[in-house]
């Protein structure tokens, strides 16, 4: 690779707005069509109502797009924010960025919460939120330079097209002497050629003297950046301390930061050991509880899962500090050095792999029948370098493999690839094809919803069967948990605003293992409180892991252990210390509820956001096939007889599958009713006028959207 050559095509100086109590109260808008750069003040009413982070992103997106806007229309906005608490060094998980845009997969707002230093650097450079609209007429790189108070747009040619090399090259180009001052957001060739392109957010790992990255994975945010012809967005900023956010009460901030960090340092080693193994501890746990996706979510466990969990990765991960934010005590962003891929453009070279996390192991390992830690690493590496979401990649290829094994598609359609479960080279070849937009990979890269249509229209595949086994909802591929035995988590996926991602609610163990929510009302209450609290992290620029992945030793003695209220109180203290607003735990829920309902109305504006869009493929609810049923026959037979009072003696397996399906689908509909009621929504899943009035989002344009959907 030669030296980076960038040609400046636009540069503006700006007066850097100092951060006060976590906010700059400024937004940066870049219209790439005309290289227009604009800095606006953020209205106090917007701050009060939307808090920051995802709330700001959604508000500015709402202004930018019409109900008819498609993901690749110039007016689609890609928004990145940090939140008022983001950028607090030492606070565990205290440096996240939140990305939103209209998704190529869902046609509605997608949001993704990601590590790396970009969000804080951007904020400290003077902007709570940036919006990118329009489309450049050539490849460009954007620089937000908070040290020199300049914003520049460069034309870019002959840059590396993969994120792995591009992030490194731009980091050294923009601050060779102090690369730690740089954070780069990149996509990659896979983002250009698929609908589930991700964004890589970098930071410079001073210990290892290399660029690391985390991914804003879900929903195609990278695809949108690539469509706008933006190769990278770079933020540059200097020294950061606890004072940089100019907190209202520095001593209180120091106290709560120290308290939370100390607890994690004390207890993580006794609990999940995330600072050693990241989230790979979940692999054996999910496998043992029949929740690890295996063979396209057909099964929940596999005897070989032991070789892709924490026992293996603990020994493969490179030792050293792995926080994706400065001083984070969880420090779960592990990686593998000196990895040598077997395939693709990096074949035989030595690379550093950032990962894998649980989702990648499950999605690109067990779900594909691949029980090989090194193949999973290679898939992880190429997905990141190409800018592909490992969750959508894994879930999509799992769907393809099951279609292949059932004869719905053949080598005639796949270009000769024999895509049976366990075919490691087949999976890797598909990923290389996705990156190039070539061959069968070009079809897979459109995601499951479009694949179902293409396979039915062009390959004469059975649409009903594909609907049952295609693990997508709202157009987004499922993240990696089996939900068949947890009705609450079926709701956690099916009722999630952006589609089936577990960041809104993860209720499997509370529901399935502990049976703590036996009634619909119990489940509905959980599907209110947990999404509301979890939303709050993305309003503020935080990671959720420190909340409930390491818990106080006396948590079990509290009234509601699942909520980890001691930590919720700490978060309220954290918010108070930074912003100066005296805040109680219930206030956090209220902040989220406003943004959550606004996002639901936003979905409605984009043509989704009603009951019919909260549907699930039946595989998320129960056994689709006779093979699945018979693999857990005792469990299902017992439910039919004991729970539903059926006499099944004369029923063959197919009849039992049908009988169970009828019951489970009915339960899911009842759950929807209960949750909608708890959330203050109509039977059709739309916030009522009273709800939006109560939350203060009854703007005329919101009421217009409600009225257009029959809510007066």
């Amino acid at each position: 690779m030669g030296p980076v050559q960038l040609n400046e095509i636009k540069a503006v100086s700006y007066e850097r707005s100092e951060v006060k109590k976590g906010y700059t109260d400024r937004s940066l808008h870049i219209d790439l069509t005309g290289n227009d750069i604009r800095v606006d003040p953020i209205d106090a009413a917007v701050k009060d109502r939307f808090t920051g982070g995802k709330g700001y992103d959604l508000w500015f997106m709402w202004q930018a797009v019409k109900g008819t806007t498609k993901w690749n229309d110039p007016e689609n906005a890609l928004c990145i924010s940090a939140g008022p608490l983001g950028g607090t060094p030492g606070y565990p998980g205290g440096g996240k960025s939140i990305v939103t845009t209209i998704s190529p997969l869902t046609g509605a707002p997608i949001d993704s919460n990601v590590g790396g230093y970009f969000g804080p650097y951007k904020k400290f450079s003077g902007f709570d939120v940036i919006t990118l609209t329009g489309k450049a007429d050539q490849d460009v790189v954007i620089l937000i330079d908070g040290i020199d108070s300049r914003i520049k747009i460069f034309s870019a040619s002959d840059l590396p097209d993969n994120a792995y090399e591009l992030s490194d090259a731009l980091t050294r180009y923009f601050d060779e002497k102090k690369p730690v001052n740089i954070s780069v957001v990149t996509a990659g060739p896979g983002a250009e050629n698929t609908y589930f392109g991700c964004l890589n957010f970098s930071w410079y790992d001073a210990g290892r003297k290399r660029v690391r990255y985390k991914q804003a994975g879900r929903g195609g945010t990278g695809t949108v950046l690539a469509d706008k012809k933006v190769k990278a967005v770079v933020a540059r900023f200097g020294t950061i301390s606890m004072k940089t956010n100019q907190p209202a009460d520095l001593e209180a901030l120091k106290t709560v930061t120290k308290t939370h960090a100390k607890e994690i340092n004390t207890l993580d080693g006794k609990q999940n050991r995330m600072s050693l193994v990241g989230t790979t501890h979940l692999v054996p746990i999910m496998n043992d509880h029949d929740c690890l996706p295996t063979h396209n979510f057909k099964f929940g466990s596999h005897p070989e899962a032991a070789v892709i969990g924490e026992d293996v990765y603990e020994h493969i991960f490179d030792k050293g500090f792995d926080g994706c934010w400065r001083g984070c005590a969880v420090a779960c962003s592990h990686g593998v050095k000196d990895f040598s891929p077997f395939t693709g453009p990096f074949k035989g070279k030595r690379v550093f792999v950032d990962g894998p996390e649980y989702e990648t192991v499950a999605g690109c390992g067990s779900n594909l029948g691949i029980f090989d830690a090194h193949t999973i690493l290679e898939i992880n590496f190429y997905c990141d370098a190409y800018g592909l979401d490992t969750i959508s990649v894994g879930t999509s290829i799992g769907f393809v493999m099951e279609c292949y094994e059932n004869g719905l598609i053949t080598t005639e359609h796949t270009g000769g690839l024999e895509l049976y479960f366990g075919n490691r080279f087949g999976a890797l070849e598909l990923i290389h094809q996705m990156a190039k937009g070539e061959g069968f990979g070009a079809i897979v890269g459109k995601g499951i919803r479009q694949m179902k249509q293409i396979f039915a229209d062009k390959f004469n595949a059975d649409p009903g069967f594909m609907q049952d086994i295609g693990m997508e909802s709202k157009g987004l591929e499922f993240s990696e948990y089996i939900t068949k035995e947890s009705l609450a988590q079926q709701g956690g996926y099916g009722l999630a605003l952006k589609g089936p991602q577990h960041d809104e609610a993860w209720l499997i163990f509370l529901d399935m293992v502990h049976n703590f929510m036996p009634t619909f009302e119990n489940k509905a209450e959980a599907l209110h409180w947990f999404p509301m609290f979890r939303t709050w992290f993305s309003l503020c620029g935080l990671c959720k892991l420190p909340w409930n992945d390491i818990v106080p030793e006396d948590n079990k003695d509290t009234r509601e252990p699942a909520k980890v209220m001691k930590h919720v109180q700490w978060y309220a203290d954290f918010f108070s210390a930074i912003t100066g607003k005296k805040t109680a735990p219930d206030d956090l829920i209220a902040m989220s509820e406003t943004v959550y309902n606004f996002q639901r109305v936003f979905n409605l504006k984009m043509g989704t956001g009603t009951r019919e869009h909260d549907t699930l493929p039946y595989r998320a609810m129960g056994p689709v096939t006779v093979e699945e049923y018979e693999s857990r026959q005792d469990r299902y037979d017992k439910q039919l007889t004991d729970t539903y009072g059926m006499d099944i003696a004369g029923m063959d397996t197919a009849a039992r599958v049908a009988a169970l399906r009828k019951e489970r689908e009915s339960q899911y509909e009842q759950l929807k009713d209960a949750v909608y009621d708890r959330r203050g929504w109509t039977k059709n899943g739309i916030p009522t006028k009273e709800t939006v009035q109560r939350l203060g989002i009854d703007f005329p344009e919101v009421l217009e959207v409600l009225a257009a959907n029959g809510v007066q």
Partner: protein
Amino acid sequence: MIQVNDQPVEWKPDMTIADLLKQMPDVRFCSVVRVNGKLISSPRFDVTRIPDNAVIHLLPLVAGG
């Protein structure tokens, strides 16, 4: 003797994790334990025997990825 969450607990021959949990207070959220560093999940509590001198930590919650 075994150590459970840093506290000494009497060990008995053929003692399983299920046996141990029966004598522990407030374990309603415990679906996973570490025995000498190795994860054991609730479906295997009945069949996993605890060795003498084991160091055990009860994982308080499983919270998803």
